[in-house]
């Protein structure tokens, strides 16, 4: 008997430790695991290195985690946020370090980390300031940069449904970074609208096989960042 379902978001993030590397899924608000992030704020882990495509908006979800000064470094492709001053202030004050990575390189570094590939070559960013300090090499007359695989202690991900073995399906463009992040994290934690029994999910349509997932938690009606921001919410 295998059952990866845990009772609550709080239970799911219980062992995130100070100094951990945490990948957080989502592209903008789509796929942002807000309830897991809020549970992580409550849990109190600090000095985190966060890997996420953006820096959140308003003062909820990822932006709230940043505002609570739990994140000492963020690895990110697009940290500029239209409707929040949370990250800019942290960045300018030096409280949060930024490693800026092109979006495709970020996605591939995460997948490589999960696939046991310590390094790979990419043409993206050749000749740009983001190539500074990076090793480059020619293949077939074209220049590429060496990029390193990226792993994490934990990943917080939002899916649509899970089974008790941890198999995951996603909703539309909320899929984004979920599958590679589940691969790259020692402990991948996925919030989903619904958890079903093993055998109730068609093995042909599983997007993230359960082997990549440690815990699933049911959040029946997840909040959306845009709605919370429009309502003027802040967390906690």
């Amino acid at each position: 008997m295998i059952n990866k379902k845990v009772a609550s978001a709080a239970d799911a993030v219980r062992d995130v430790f100070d100094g951990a590397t945490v990948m957080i899924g989502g592209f903008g608000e789509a796929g942002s695991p807000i309830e897991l992030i809020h549970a992580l704020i409550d849990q109190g882990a600090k000095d985190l290195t966060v890997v996420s495509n953006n820096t959140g908006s308003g003062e909820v979800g990822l932006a709230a985690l940043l505002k609570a000064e739990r994140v000492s470094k963020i690895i990110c492709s697009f940290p500029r946020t239209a409707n929040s001053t949370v990250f800019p202030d942290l960045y300018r004050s030096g409280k949060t370090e930024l490693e800026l990575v092109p979006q495709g390189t970020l996605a591939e570094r995460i997948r490589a980390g999960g696939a046991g590939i310590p390094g790979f070559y990419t043409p993206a960013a050749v000749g740009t300031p983001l190539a500074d300090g990076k090793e480059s090499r020619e293949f077939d007359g074209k220049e590429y940069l060496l990029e390193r695989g990226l792993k994490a202690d934990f990943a917080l991900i939002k899916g649509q449904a899970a089974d008790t073995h941890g198999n995951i399906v996603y909703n539309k463009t909320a899929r984004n970074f979920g599958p590679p992040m589940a691969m790259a994290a020692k402990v991948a934690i996925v919030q989903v609208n619904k958890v079903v029994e093993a055998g109730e999910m068609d093995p042909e349509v599983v997007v993230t096989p359960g082997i990549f997932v440690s815990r699933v938690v049911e959040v029946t009606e997840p909040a959306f960042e845009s709605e919370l921001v429009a309502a003027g919410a802040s967390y906690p």
Partner: protein
Amino acid sequence: MSEQTKVIGRTREEMAQRLAQDIPNGSYVNLGIGIPELVARFVPEGRTLIYHTENGLLGMGPSPEEGKGDPELINAGKRHVTVNPGAAFFHHADSFAMIRGGHIDLCVLGAMQVSKAGDLANWSTGEPGAIPAVGGAMDLCAGVKSVFVITQHCTKTGEPKLVDECTYPLTGLGVINRIYTDLAVIDVTPEGFKLVELSPGVDFDYVQERTGAPLIPVSD
């Protein structure tokens, strides 16, 4: 000079319409945020383009009706979109495999500067204190088969955007194939900027004056 560029040459919509003429039926296309997005409105009748958005969708359709948006169905600009028949969802690593692997036929980007060697600067002014943010621009211009720029010919203060060498931080090196501006359509060739056509009512000298590098005329 900035007044003049406003009153002659193509509007943003006309620029997008002109560019749309040049995209073959069945192309896989990624449109950047801003003027590039307008291109989708002007695709000639009878052609089907398949739009890729790097956050994980091929077959992106137009914006939904006001109030009908789904927060989990968005484009790279984080705006609500819809899904056309024949669409597919996928994750970010697969999405950028499409980009990096040369599977996207065309991407259309905005620009701060394009050099005569096809270098692109469009992500940062390099100002200290500005929050740097790059997104997928470097991957797109390094990987997509053809990369077009659509932009005003000059900045708001009248400075040329087509330059000898970029002064802003680069997005990619030698990556731009063609530029569509309010004043002209210009190819980037091994010899430098080469005019393809002038916008209606615009003459060669007028464009050359506003271009930061020599412009090879059509006849050459």
